[in-house]
């Protein structure tokens, strides 16, 4: 069991930083969630350090069909990191599970430079509330000590990666929380060679034993399938199985759906998107992954169709391409943080701030 040493290590880090810099600063969004620059993804938290090869091999589908498994595993690295003091599934009645989560993508060099395959593995690590609070404090204090000027925006990679000392110590803070014994879930988004079709599936791990994730709202299905063939020209997305929750969105984005839609249909689809973006309404226990991801993808087209979609967050231009289903990672080489994830991060940051203020 590694939790106790990890907790001591985190507490020691936080105390040392507090002693040298005064009281730990309040966390900002990039203290609790951040993008890793593509150039650092392979060395910061590579798959070999956070995703055991047997778990990678146990995933149901290849992440890509165009790469051999060894090459794919070697190219996988963390492109984003999230701390969460209370991950819930199934609404407010769900169990509160403190976690660290990483998104891993295959990062490769092509003629055009460094880019990603449009595929990902999302890994979930269990932690205690104290450990998450300790890591949050330590990262906030480290950011202050290294005099990094973090904005509240999370759409750009963390500036700390330009500072070798920050990078080394941030890794030291996170690594104890990312051991194999803490890995409780691994989900995948596999892509077809055309970059126009994806599979969402995953595993829950209990004492290292994997079992298929039961995807809510999809009945007996353990895979969700998405195709998106419209590029930047039009919205043409299929969801299979057809979702039973927020199906107004699925109807609108389907080939020919927008053209056939009434004003009422369009407003219903827009309302679906707004609910999907709201972490207080939906979570991974109330809606399937594919529908949730498609919400951000459809957003620009819905807004352009004339339906008002007021949102407290920016929708990155990367989502103008309707093939972009990313939530917190890179669409090829473009950082992509979905409106939902932006709101989740803000909510988590506020929650952790309150917990830190209450902590003895």
């Amino acid at each position, binding site marked *: 069991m590694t939790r106790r040493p990890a907790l001591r290590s985190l507490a020691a880090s936080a105390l040392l930083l507090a002693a040298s810099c005064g009281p730990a600063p309040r966390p900002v969004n990039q203290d609790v969630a951040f993008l890793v620059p593509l150039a650092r993804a392979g060395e910061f938290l590579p798959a070999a350090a956070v995703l055991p090869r047997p778990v990678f*091999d146990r995933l*149901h*589908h*290849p992440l*890509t*069909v*165009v*790469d*051999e*498994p*060894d*090459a794919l595993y070697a190219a996988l690295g963390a492109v984003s990191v999230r701390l969460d003091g209370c991950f819930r599934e199934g609404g407010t009645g769900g169990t509160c599970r403190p976690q660290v989560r990483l998104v891993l993508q295959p990062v490769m060099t092509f003629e055009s430079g460094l880019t990603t395959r449009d595929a990902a593995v999302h890994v979930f690590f269990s932690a205690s509330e104290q450990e998450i609070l300790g890591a949050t404090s330590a990262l906030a204090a480290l950011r202050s000590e290294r005099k990094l000027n973090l904005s509240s925006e999370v759409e750009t990679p963390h500036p700390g990666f330009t500072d070798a000392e920050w990078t080394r110590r941030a890794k030291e803070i996170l690594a104890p929380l990312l051991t194999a014994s803490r890995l409780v879930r691994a989900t995948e988004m596999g892509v*077809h*060679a*055309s*970059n*126009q*079709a994806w*599979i969402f599936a995953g595993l829950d791990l209990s004492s290292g034993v994997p079992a298929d994730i039961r995807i809510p709202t999809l009945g007996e299905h353990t*895979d969700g*399938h998405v*195709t998106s*063939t419209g590029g930047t020209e039009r919205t043409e997305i*299929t969801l*299979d199985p057809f979702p039973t929750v927020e199906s107004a969105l699925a109807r609108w984005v389907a080939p020919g759906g927008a053209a056939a839609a009434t004003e009422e249909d369009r407003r219903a689809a827009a309302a679906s998107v707004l609910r999907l973006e709201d972490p207080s309404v939906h979570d991974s226990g109330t809606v399937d992954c594919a529908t949730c991801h498609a919400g951000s993808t459809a957003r620009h087209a819905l807004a352009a169709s004339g339906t008002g979609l007021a949102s407290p967050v920016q929708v990155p231009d990367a989502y103008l391409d309707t093939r972009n289903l990313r939530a917190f990672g890179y669409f090829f080489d473009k950082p992509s943080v979905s409106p939902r994830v932006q709101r989740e991060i803000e909510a988590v940051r506020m929650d952790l701030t309150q917990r830190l203020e209450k902590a003895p």
Partner: protein
Amino acid sequence: MKLAPASLSLLLLLAPAAARAAPCDAALFGDSVCDCGCGTVDPDCAQGTFTVCERSHCAAGQVPWEHSPASCMASACGDGWNDPARGESCDDGNALAGGGCSATCAAVSAGYECGERASGCRLAPVDAGSPAAPDAGVSHAQDAGAGTDAGSDQPAGSAGGCAAAGGTPLAWAALGWMLTRRSARSR
């Protein structure tokens, strides 16, 4: 729905040639060849792989996806579908050098032959009368595919592709490719 072999044979015998060539003829399901169309997938298609169907209902330049077979998407190097319309000479189901096809699907590797559509690539049989192996970069797609898919009356990837039965050797080649990939993944 998969038909019993006896029922299938009877249907094939009784059905006029024109009817057998009609798009999405469900009677062709269960003929050992993986066909796409009709909004469903032939039980002969291996599940859980990305291999596309031998015959498809999709327009030229598009391929069906067996995980959602009613959907058509752009064909691409590495999807396992040899598509001359987009400049491919071969497609061994990945975008890596080796395995019979170049990383860009533009050239067949030396010593291999690659077939049409979803037939993949395989080592060329050694010909005692012709000791020289095929040159790298020379496509053998047409040779390999010739005569093996007599029932197909449409070019690769064309619309209305549910033609008469045929192409079984190609299906076996595709199966071999799939097993190779699974074996690689299980290491």
